[in-house]
């Protein structure tokens, strides 16, 4: 244990340990945050390469590259890895890095648990990915793993998949507890709840969602485990079970889950837009209430994923109305972001570009979501490429662009070096064009009648599929540029970053030097 890195007159603190133990045993929120972010990017590339296989097969009608069996494994693993391996850990990584800096705390409230919750993830994903090499192949029933396809008819590797989900769930719950404990107990004096930065607010609410629904996910996979290995019949109609029960329980987890993936991005964008518009966020309080309302409503809308399973008409109507209601608080957020930009003094560095694209494209995803809420129309959209277009519009320019925006915004703080702005703008524009080329035609395909999760399609879908594949390859390759930009920045190649590199940025994180020292806020700052 040396004191090498410590040059900031805090010599009673020690610096990072040397070698591998620094990463294995660390309890430092910055180290753990970095590990989460690196892990999530690795998973992003892995899940992305599976998407490339999917799009290559769908480039033309007919079976060319993979067999249907393997195609199904690719769609399943792509979904699971992106949701649980890329998006969720990325936001936990951002939370680890930024929450203590934003609330003026020296670290997360439960640092050892923090280490444990990270190191569970590589174990879980090693197990999940290893199923690809098992007899009978990896899970092939879609990331929604509907029973009885995933139970009676699932491959032998399903049990490993269940165990992996359990471990991820444990990791998420511990992460969420840590976030809540940090935010509720470790804020700097004077920082009342309604003075908290929005990223802190959105993460607080996200953490409560996680604690509420991850046990439900654990419950549903445990029931699967019992059905597969211990002779129960929760979901097996032949044994008196109910296949639809699976969907109710899964989506009770699944719908809040999609907000878990988007709410922290709302927080990020609510910092970046005011910073680059040089104008205070419009309607702070209504932003907080809107996030709260979205979170509460997310528990009341799960059956809109199940409009075609034959729930009674009153159930159908209830879930239709409740789902439409979500448009109201979501609308408020979009209007507030636009009002923040209105009459500001804007510049368009990479974080702002990603944030503006976030607002536009996420809103398009919201529109298609509203269309999907209309139950009779949903009969036409359900399980077609229209749905695929919808959720990719919410997740790619929503969650993923939110993460890119956050990364560019805070990279100077993390590394002490400015990233290469020209390259970052190139990354943005290529991603933006590739992403729209990949996903916008999917709306047309769905409306024209192409079902999702098929390895081959009728001839009338050929042209838009080809365009979509070209866009997807473009988006995929572009992400290597992001890797290059970050590595370059982390190695210190670039301008030195000031403590506050963005003219309009606000918040405690900009009061510490760049790069942020290994230990910050040993003495809590005062918030007025």
């Amino acid at each position: 244990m040396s004191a090498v890195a410590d040059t900031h007159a805090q010599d009673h603190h020690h610096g990072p340990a040397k070698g591998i133990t620094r990463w294995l045993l660390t309890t430092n929120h910055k180290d753990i945050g970095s590990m989460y972010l690196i892990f999530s990017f690795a998973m992003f590339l892995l899940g992305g390469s599976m998407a490339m296989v999917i799009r290559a097969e769908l480039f033309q009608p007919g079976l060319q590259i993979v067999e249907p069996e393997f195609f199904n494994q690719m769609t399943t693993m792509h979904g699971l890895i992106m949701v649980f391996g890329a998006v969720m850990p990325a936001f936990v990584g951002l939370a680890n890095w930024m929450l203590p800096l934003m609330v003026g705390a020296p670290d997360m409230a439960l640092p050892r648990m923090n280490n444990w919750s990270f190191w569970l993830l590589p174990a879980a994903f090693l197990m999940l990915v290893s199923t690809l090499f098992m007899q009978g192949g990896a899970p092939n029933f879609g990331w929604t793993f509907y029973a009885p396809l995933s139970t009676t008819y699932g491959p032998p590797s399903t049990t490993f998949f269940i165990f992996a989900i359990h471990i991820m769930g444990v990791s998420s719950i511990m992460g969420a507890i840590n976030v809540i404990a940090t935010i509720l107990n470790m804020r700097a004096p004077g920082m009342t709840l309604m003075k908290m930065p929005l990223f802190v607010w959105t993460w607080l609410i996200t953490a409560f969602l996680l604690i509420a629904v991850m046990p439900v996910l654990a419950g549903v996979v445990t029931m699967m485990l019992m059905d597969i290995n211990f002779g129960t019949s929760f979901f097996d109609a032949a044994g008196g079970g109910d296949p639809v029960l699976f969907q109710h329980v899964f989506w009770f987890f699944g719908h809040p889950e999609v907000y878990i993936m988007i709410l922290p991005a709302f927080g990020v964008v609510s910092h970046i837009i005011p910073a680059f518009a040089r104008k205070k966020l419009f309607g702070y309080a209504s932003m907080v209430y809107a996030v709260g309302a979205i979170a509460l409503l997310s528990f009341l809308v799960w059956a809109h994923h199940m409009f075609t399973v034959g729930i009674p008409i009153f159930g159908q109507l209830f879930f239709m109305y409740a789902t439409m209601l979500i448009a109201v608080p979501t609308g408020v957020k979009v209007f507030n972001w636009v009002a923040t930009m209105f009459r500001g003094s804007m510049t368009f560095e990479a974080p702002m570009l990603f944030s503006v694209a976030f607002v536009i494209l996420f809103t398009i995803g919201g529109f298609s979501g509203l269309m999907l809420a209309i139950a009779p129309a949903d009969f036409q959209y359900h399980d077609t490429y229209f749905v695929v277009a919808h959720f990719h519009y919410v997740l790619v320019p929503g969650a993923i662009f939110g993460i890119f925006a956050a990364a560019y915004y805070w990279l100077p703080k993390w590394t002490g070096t400015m990233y290469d702005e020209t390259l970052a703008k190139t990354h943005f524009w290529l991603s933006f064009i590739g992403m729209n080329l990949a996903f916008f035609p999917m709306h047309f395909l769905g409306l024209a009648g192409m079902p999702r999760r098929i390895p081959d399609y009728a001839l009338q879908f050929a042209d838009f599929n080809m365009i979509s594949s070209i866009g997807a390859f473009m988006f995929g390759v572009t992400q290597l540029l992001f890797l290059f930009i970050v590595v370059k920045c982390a190695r210190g190649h670039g301008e030195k970053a000031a403590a506050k590199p963005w003219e309009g940025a606000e918040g405690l994180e900009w009061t510490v030097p760049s790069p942020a020292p290994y230990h910050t806020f040993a003495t809590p700052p005062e918030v007025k």
Partner: protein
Amino acid sequence: MHVHVKRAGALIAGTLLSAPALADWTMNMSPGVTETSNQVFDLHMTILWICVVIGVVVFGVMFWSIFAHRKSKGHQPAHFHENTVVEILWTIIPFAILVIMAIPATATLVDMYDTTEAEVDIKVTGYQWRWRYEYLENPGTEGDPEFGFFSNLSTSRDEIYNRMDKNENYLLDVDNPMVVPVGKKVRLLLTANDVIHSWWVPEFAIKKDAIPGFINEVWFKVDEPGIYRGQCTELCGKDHGFMPVVVEAVPEEEYTQWAANLREAAEKERELTQKDWTLEELVERGEGVYATSCAACHGDDGSGGGPFPSLRGTPVVTEDIDAHMDIVVNGVSGTAMQAFGSQLSEADLAAVITYERNAWGNNTGEMVTPKEVFDYKNQ
């Protein structure tokens, strides 16, 4: 190679010159051919236009700001950051729009759920990976024997594996379509034999899940005779993309005649059980049955693949014949091997078992007759 070049050419021409003649650039939902589908189409267009208008207003303000309120143009930031009146307005107005939207949606939904007074009832059962249609007794057909059949993909594997040109209805063609009379209210009772499937014909705006252990109901009434195509829309395993739905709507007289023919054929099929069969006859018939019912999993040449066992010289098909019959008739619980006893006629069961015991070098010379299968099923 030529196909590639042509496709690429069509793509470039289509994108750059927007030449719709070269390609199918369908971008919107079809209004369909039923009253319900027209209502659904109207709902879809209404909500789409509402979204477009909101989008134009919101993005309009945004792009105006992006254009005009730039630092590079020397624009100074304003200082407002709150306005309760505006906040309340943009909460209430969207809410009002939603209420307006919910009214027609509710009416359409209520109409779609009214499955009473159907004139034709068809039971639809989803199997991995084909559909079974059984025509049930209805007013006017009391006492007539019920009949049913399987509807299998008829696109050849050569087309799928690009060894042959793909025809116009690639992946959307079946051997036996569902036939319905025009102008009659048809009710479908949907269920499934193995996993969840979903029955969809876009032009009827009907999509309903077929779930094991459940019976779901939907109805449609087609006015125009024609052939309408759709697909399974719930992931149901390996060949999910290869189980199309085809419905042929025909004038009533034609339908009545068709139904009478099928009833007669069903009667003949039952008689086949009593007939005396030779080994060659059974093997010949069995080859066809194997191709439609077994080849999807066990392979065209019985070699299996993945979790599906090989049938080439394996004990199941070369040793105890009763055990072989048991597996085919009752399935193997906990695996993908289905119970074919209720899916195939006695003649077909006997034929396929005999075929498996004598094909691909399994020259056992043994046979099972339809009568033996009948006795086995009824013992």
